[in-house]
């Protein structure tokens, strides 16, 4: 008998084992829903799959009676737009500041303690400040993501830059490179795939800040919708929205990984 730690599932078994927990959750949900429905047909806490399908249909495939929009898609559009703008701005800040500080000790000295301090501020605590300063429009929602995510990105990129082998920088100097050339040709191209890694890690936080901001002050967006229909206990809408958000988060992460693998094969081969 082989040891348990040496037993490997084969491909088919591995996929099957991966799917089973999801099916189990659906099954448990179905049973729970049935039990509650048997007691009270009007129960809203665990809607049946048919009710959820109807909810999806109402939100995604029928125009809203109030505005005439397809609300599900409008919400998705607004949220994804805010998220991508926020992430893009954060990534640029993280790259520029992190790279500069990581490569140039004279920049790191004044910046590093400041960034550490800023990254310890809970972004949610200054959300009211953002609303006061930037108003209740799009800007404050994007700013929350930027403030929440960019200190992490800066610190990560700073560290990754300093982790590049010292030998490479010495070598580049013996090849006659000046500081700017070395940053541009040696450090920057090697940091970009590391930035993509960092961005992927920060996506969870970015979604958190987005939904929080939308819940508090917005007129559309996935987070806004969830918190709106909560008042009517519309689990038939909340649940598919949550699944949809999860799916979007997964897709974004997967796309970034694929992109990185295609564009920076040397980086993934190295690891």
């Amino acid at each position, binding site marked *: 008998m082989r040891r348990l730690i040496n037993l490997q599932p084969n491909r088919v078994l591995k996929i099957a084992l991966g799917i089973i927990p999801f099916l189990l959750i659906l099954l448990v949900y179905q049973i729970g829903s049935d039990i509650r429905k048997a007691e009270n047909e009007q129960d809203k806490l665990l809607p049946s799959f048919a009710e959820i399908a109807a909810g999806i249909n109402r939100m995604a495939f029928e125009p809203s009676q109030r505005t005439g929009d397809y609300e599900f898609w409008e919400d998705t559009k607004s949220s994804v737009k805010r998220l991508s703008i926020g992430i893009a701005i954060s990534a640029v800040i993280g790259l520029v500041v992190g790279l500069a500080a990581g490569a140039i000790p004279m920049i790191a000295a004044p910046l590093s303690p400041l960034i550490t301090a800023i990254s310890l501020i809970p972004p949610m605590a200054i959300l009211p400040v953002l609303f006061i300063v930037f108003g209740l429009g799009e800007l404050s929602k994007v700013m929350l993501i930027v403030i929440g995510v960019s200190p992490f990105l800066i610190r990560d990129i700073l560290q990754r830059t300093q982790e590049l082998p010292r030998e490479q920088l010495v070598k*580049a100097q013996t090849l006659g490179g000046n500081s700017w050339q070395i940053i*541009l040709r040696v450090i920057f191209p090697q940091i970009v795939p590391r930035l993509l890694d960092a961005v992927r890690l920060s996506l969870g936080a970015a979604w958190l800040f987005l939904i929080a901001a939308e819940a508090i002050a917005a007129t559309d967006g996935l987070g806004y919708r969830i918190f709106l229909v909560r008042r009517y206990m519309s689990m038939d809408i909340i649940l598919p929205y949550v699944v949809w958000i999860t799916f979007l988060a997964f897709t974004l992460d997967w796309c970034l990984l694929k992109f990185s693998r295609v564009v920076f094969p040397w980086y993934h*081969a190295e690891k």
Partner: protein
Amino acid sequence: MTAFIQLDRLSKHYRDNVVLENLSCKVAEGEFVTLVGASGCGKSTFLRLLLGTESVSSGQLLMAGKPIEQEPSPDRGIVFQRYSVFPHLNVRENVVLGIEFVESKWLGRLFGKGRKEALEKADELLSAVGLEQARYKYPHELSGGMQQRLALAQALIKKPKVLLLDEPFGALDPGIRKEMHDLVMGLWRQYGLTIFMVTHDLKEGFHLGTRLWVFDKVRHDPHAPNRFGSTITYDLSLQSKDKALTIAAIDEINAQLQAVE
């Protein structure tokens, strides 16, 4: 002998830790000096002094009569044991970078005709080190020996006066190492280089150089191991005809190194 590199009562210490003390020596242009010694004897520190990433604490280290620059520069090429090549550039781009740094001040990158000429120069060097077949490969696709060949080509494109090798073949298989020895000897003659090579392998040191330096401590204080630094205890010319003398010296040095370790 006209001195190209001159060490004049050179010492190096970090606070209380004395690494090197009182080194005085002259090296002529075109010599191939191999540096051996037990680990922690300061031979790599000495190489870093030559490279310019460390500075001497007292005494002088002169190159062509002037103190060595306190920064790495193109007149002193380097090959490390690892991480000498850039993983994000292919073999050709790795070599061309040395030309691009000079000719394109702001972008560090050449285009069109300039790039073509630079690539031709790079290809010449790549065939000199036997990498012409691997021109479009990335470092992660190369074996350890090929990566070191690339690192040599990279360094040579700058036409350095001095080539510093920091245990360049330490991580390679014995068979490959032999090939690399032949390569380095060939390049040394062809380009008229002055080479300083740090190695763990005493045999390698004897086989390659024209001159062998053994680094060791002359004085020991058992209560304060860092109180005294290493110096050059043997400075052997390997070109002398007297083989018997050299062989006797090997045995003696070997015994000494083993005693230390």
